[in-house]
């Protein structure tokens, strides 16, 4: 069963701003889906739509088979949510906060205690368990929020910028935990972030969003293929045979050729050696998530400008006619 399904999901706010425009996608259990885009791209709005705290203006979505806008409370029983704005109680300690949410989610007192203690240990908060939340640092709060979202063993986890405010070591621990949750417990993770490098470390599939539109969706390999059908192969070699399709690139003895798949590499290297060349290094330049994102947004803007330009020219011409 697919855990999250979006079908032409759209949201237009009362002020007329289109935050989400016809997004369609489907996620399987155990996937860590990176929903990536800059601030204001529509990521948080999508999370709110998937949790039923916002009602879609068009299209539909289902989480664990439930329509969240029709039955939000039922959907929440299967989901855990970490967002910047979902805070906990400053006057309660870390463990008291977790126990409170555990009882709200219907866990028995003994199960709540065991679960809370395990999560605090896993997230390196054991020593701070009895401290009031008001004494927690931003990073500790963020980790406790993750513990709170996991307290009821959700099947779907929504994380909105989960590592903001975390030091590198904590961020690495959280990443590891997210990967483990997906791999061992089959939790579907819907992770929103604008930190593309961070996403590349943890996600199994990506959706790139800008101004409410889903620009592309797929695994890193699929996105790379879609953006760059031909990959640059960089070879450092001496006595490069002239008949081969390599061109000098940058420094001395650095050559570049375009290949469609990595399967072409052994044959090319063999040809260099057979032609009398000495190979020192071979590297395929895969575009990073950042490069893919910027290429996609640039392409979209170019298309939009091209669409707008005839209209502008026409308007200018009409203006001229009027002034004449």
């Amino acid at each position: 069963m697919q855990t999250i399904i979006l079908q032409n999901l759209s949201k237009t706010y009362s002020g007329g701003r289109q935050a989400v425009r016809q997004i369609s996608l489907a996620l399987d259990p155990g996937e860590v889906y990176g929903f990536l885009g800059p601030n204001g791209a529509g990521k948080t709005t999508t999370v709110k739509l998937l949790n039923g705290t916002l009602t879609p203006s068009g299209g539909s979505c289902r989480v664990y088979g439930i329509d969240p806008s029709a039955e939000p409370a039922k959907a929440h029983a299967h989901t855990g949510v970490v967002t910047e704005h979902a805070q906990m109680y400053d006057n309660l300690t870390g463990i008291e906060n977790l126990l409170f949410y555990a009882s709200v989610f219907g866990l028995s007192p003994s199960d709540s205690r065991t679960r809370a203690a395990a999560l605090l240990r896993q997230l390196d908060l054991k020593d701070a368990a009895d401290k009031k939340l008001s004494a927690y640092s931003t990073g500790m709060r963020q980790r406790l929020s993750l513990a709170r979202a996991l307290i009821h063993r959700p099947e779907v986890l929504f994380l909105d910028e989960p590592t903001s405010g975390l030091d590198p070591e904590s961020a690495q621990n959280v990443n590891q935990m997210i990967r483990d949750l997906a791999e061992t417990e089959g939790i579907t993770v819907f992770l929103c972030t604008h930190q593309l490098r961070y996403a590349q470390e943890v996600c199994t599939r990506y959706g790139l969003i800008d101004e409410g539109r889903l620009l592309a969706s797929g695994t890193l390999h699929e996105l790379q293929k879609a953006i760059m059908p031909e990959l640059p192969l960089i070879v450092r070699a001496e006595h490069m045979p002239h008949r081969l399709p390599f061109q000098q690139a940058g420094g001395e003895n650095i050559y570049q050729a375009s290949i469609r798949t990595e399967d072409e590499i052994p044959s090319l290297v063999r040809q260099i050696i057979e032609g009398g060349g000495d190979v020192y290094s071979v590297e395929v330049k895969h575009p990073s998530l950042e490069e893919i994102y910027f290429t996609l947004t640039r392409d979209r803007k170019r298309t939009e400008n091209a669409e707008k330009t005839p209209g502008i020219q026409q308007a200018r011409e009409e203006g001229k006619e009027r002034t004449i």
Partner: protein
Amino acid sequence: MNHAITAVIKKDFRGITANRRLFLSLLIVPIVLTVFLPGMFITIAHFMPEDEDLQMLLELLPRSSWASTMELTVTGLIFNNILPVFFLMIPIMASSIMAASSFVGEKEKHTLETLLYSPLTLGQIFQAKILASFLMSMTVSLISFVVMLTVVELEVFLLMGTLLLPSANWPVILLLLSPAVSMIAVTLIVRGSAKAQSVEESQQGAVFMIIPVLLLIVGQFTGVLLVSLWILLGLSLLCVLLALFLLKKAAGRFTYEMLLQ
């Protein structure tokens, strides 16, 4: 009652008692109204001179209010006609502090959003919040009554050597009018909470509810208005109906979108 709703109510109670500033503001008004003012009134009644004009004024009162001495008549009048009205102010004040803190306070501190992501429906969250405020207000009222009764009876016994008998006004006020007024205050604050952005803003709204109660107190003092038991019963039933109506309407008008603005 749902286990989760009980958890929210307990948490809200703790939120008030753990916050020294809120807890003090919750205690000050009841202490003034149930310890200082009654103590002062009874002392004045005891030490006031036997004045003929006052005697004539007291004779205008219904015979049932008369006691063996003028001092006891005045004390009885204060105890059975003026002090009960204080028990309308106490629940309004207590419920407004509690409702504002438990609802608007949660919105202000962004903890409401976390609660909205729980398996509780909006209706259940409202139910928990309204119940918590109502229970807190009733607890404060009942404790205040016990404290006031102890203070008044002790003082009357020490000064006048007798005890006062509470009139039928008391059960009507404590068990009917006071809960109804408290519920009206809670539902009005909760209704206003979607728009209010701060606890102070929401509490200011409740101040307007105190005005009719103040008028009632002034009326009782000056003798312009002497509320009889039947009027009190009628007024109480009216307030109960209004409270039930407001309660039914309160939760229905909210959506997640409105609360997260």
